C-alpha cells in the first residue's frame, strides 16, 4: 500500500508524520519526494547507503555538421537553444529534454548527452528502507528525480511517500500512484488556506484521503472546522507539545522514544489501513 503524505503549506509536519508512520509500519519503505529540501534522512539516519546520480538528456551539437538553419532554435518552446553569430548555444538549465531538436535537425548535427541534476540514495534504517531524492543546488526541476524514485518502489509492502509542499507538478507526480493521501494540517489561517488547495488536488485525482490535525491547541482549530464543513475524515489529532517539538527539532524519531507516541502512530496506521481496505472493497 502506498500512502502519500502532503500538506500544501510547508512546515506543518509532513516529514514528522511520514517518518513516524514508516517506523510504525512493518518493513516499510520511506520515500522522500521533497527533493528540493529532503529531511527524512536526517531523522532516519540510514546506513549502507548506495547513491546513484539522476541524469536528464540534453542536446549536444556537432558544429561541423550544423548549418545554422535555426530549425531547432525555432522549434524549441523553452528557448533552450540560440544561434549567436553562426554558433549554436545550448542552455541546459531550461531544457525539458523533449528531444525535438534532435529529431528535427536536417543534418543530424544534434545528439544527446546525459547531464546530472541530482541523486537518489537508498539505505536502511532498522527495518525501514529509506529512499531519498536530492536535487543539486542551482537546478530547476526535481520532477525527473521523483519519476526515478517512483520506478524504484516495490510493488508490495507499506510505502510512505513524503511529498514536497505546494500543489504544483512535483506534488502531482508524487501522489500519482498513491493508494491513499494523508493531508497534514496545522491550526492556522495559512494552514487552512493551503489545506483547501491540497484538498482540491486529491479530489481532482480521485484519491481517497483523510486529515491529520497537527500541533493542536486547546483553542478553536480552523483546520478542524474546515474538515467538519467539508465532511472530511479526521484521522488523528496530534497535540502541540514541547516534548514533541524538541524531539523533532533534534531530528529524533518520536515513536522510538516514547510509547505514547508509538501508540498514537499505531492507531493512525490502523485507521489508514482500514480506510484503504474499505476503498478497495467498495471501489475495486
Amino acid at each position, binding site marked *: 500500500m502506498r500512502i502519500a503524505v502532503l500538506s*500544501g*503549506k*510547508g*512546515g*506543518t509536519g509532513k*516529514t514528522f508524520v511520514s517518518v513516524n508512520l514508516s517506523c510504525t509500519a512493518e518493513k516499510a519503505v520511506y520515500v522522500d519526494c*521533497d527533493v*528540493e*529540501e529532503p*529531511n527524512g534522512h*536526517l531523522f532516519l539516519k540510514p546506513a549502507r547507503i548506495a547513491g546513484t546520480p539522476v541524469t536528464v538528456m540534453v542536446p549536444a551539437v556537432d558544429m561541423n555538421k550544423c548549418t545554422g538553419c535555426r530549425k531547432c532554435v525555432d*522549434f524549441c*518552446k*523553452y528557448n533552450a537553444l540560440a544561434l549567436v553569430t553562426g554558433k549554436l548555444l545550448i542552455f541546459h538549465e531550461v531544457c*525539458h*529534454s*523533449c*528531444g*525535438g531538436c534532435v*529529431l*528535427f535537425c536536417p543534418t543530424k548535427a544534434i545528439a544527446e548527452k546525459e547531464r546530472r541534476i541530482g541523486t537518489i540514495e537508498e539505505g536502511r534504517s532498522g527495518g525501514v528502507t529509506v529512499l531519498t531524492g536530492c*536535487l543539486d*543546488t*542551482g*537546478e*530547476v*526541476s*526535481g*520532477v525527473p528525480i521523483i519519476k526515478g524514485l517512483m520506478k524504484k518502489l516495490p510493488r508490495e509492502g507499506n510505502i510512505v511517500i513524503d511529498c*514536497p*509542499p*505546494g*500543489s*504544483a*507538478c*512535483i*506534488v*502531482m507526480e508524487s501522489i500519482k500512484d498513491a493508494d491513499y493521501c494523508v493531508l497534514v494540517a*496545522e*491550526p*492556522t*489561517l*495559512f494552514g487552512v*488556506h*493551503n489545506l483547501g*488547495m491540497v484538498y*482540491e*488536488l486529491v479530489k*481532482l*485525482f480521485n484519491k481517497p484521503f483523510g486529515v491529520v490535525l497537527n500541533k493542536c*491547541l486547546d483553542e478553536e482549530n*480552523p483546520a478542524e472546522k474546515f474538515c467538519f464543513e467539508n465532511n472530511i475524515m479526521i484521522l488523528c489529532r496530534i497535540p502541540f507539545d514541547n516534548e514533541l*517539538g*524538541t524531539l*523533532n*527539532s*533534534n*531530528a529524533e524519531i518520536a515513536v522510538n522514544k516514547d510509547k505514547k507516541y508509538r501508540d498514537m502512530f499505531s492507531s493512525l496506521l490502523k485507521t489508514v489501513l482500514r480506510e484503504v481496505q474499505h476503498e478497495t472493497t467498495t471501489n475495486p
Partner: protein
Amino acid sequence: MKQLLILSGKGGTGKTTIASAFIKLADAKAYADCDVDAPNLHLITGWSVEPEKTDYYGLQKAEINQELCTQCDQCRQNCRFDAISIDEKYKVDPFACEGCGVCEYVCPVEAITMKPAVAGELMLYSDEEKVFSTAQLKMGSGTSGMLVTEVKKQMKSATVDAELAIIDGSPGIGCPVIASLSGVDMVLIVAEPSISGISDMERIINTAAKFGTKTAVCINKYDTNIENTEKIEEFCKKQGLPFIARIPFDSNAVKAINNGQTIVDIDCTSGVAAKEVYQNTMNLLFEKGGG
C-alpha cells in the same frame, strides 16, 4: 527601488509572518507574494478592494483531432513525457503534457495542434498609494517559475515611486525560488533552529550564492532549541554571512495571524523582535556600497 526577498528553504519557518510585519513597519508601497504554489500573504495584508485579475497562460497543451487521427502511434512513441495514451482513442494527459510540440510536428496528418492553456491567475491589488502583486498557480501545473517572473513584472510595472519592495518567496530551492532571486538586491533567510531547518538553510544559502545575491539570516522561534540556534549563528560567522537577529517563539503570533493581523499589530514578544529584525535588515539593504 531596492528589492528584498524573503526565503527559507524549509517551509513553515515564518516567511509570510516576517514579510507581513515588514510591510506594515515599512508602510511598503510595493510588495509581492512569489509563493505562487501556496500563496498566503493576501490573507493578512488587509485589502478590502477586489484585485484586478488576469489569466496566466503557461505552456501550450497538445490536442488531438479524432476525426483526422489515423492512429499511426507516432505521437505516442515520440512523447518523452508519457503524455499520450491509447484506449480506443489516442488522448493527451494535460497534466503530463509539457507543451514541447514534438507530437504536433511528427503527426503525418496534422491531427495535433498546440492550444494555449490557462495555468494560473495573476492578481494585482492597488490604490493611490501602494501595489500588491500576487498569483495562484492552477493545481498540478508546472511553469511556476514563469508565473513568479510575471508576478514580479506586474509589481514593477504598477509601481510608480517606491524606495523598497518586499517580496515573499516560496519554500525549496527549485524553479520558483530561482525565478524569484533574479534582480533582487538582498535575500533575508528566515531559519528555524531544527536539524531539518539547518540542512534546508544551507541548501538555500548555496543556491542564492550561485546567483551572487547578498544574503543575511535571522532565526525564528530561536528559543525552541538554543543549541541549534547557536549552531546557525556559528555557521553564519564561518560563512561571513550577516546575522540579523533572533525572534522568540510566541503563541501570540499564531493568534495575530488567525485574526488576520501581523505580529507588529499587537503587543507581543515576537513583534518586538520583528522590529529589530526589520531595522537591521534595512540598515544592511540601504548601506552605502551595498549595491
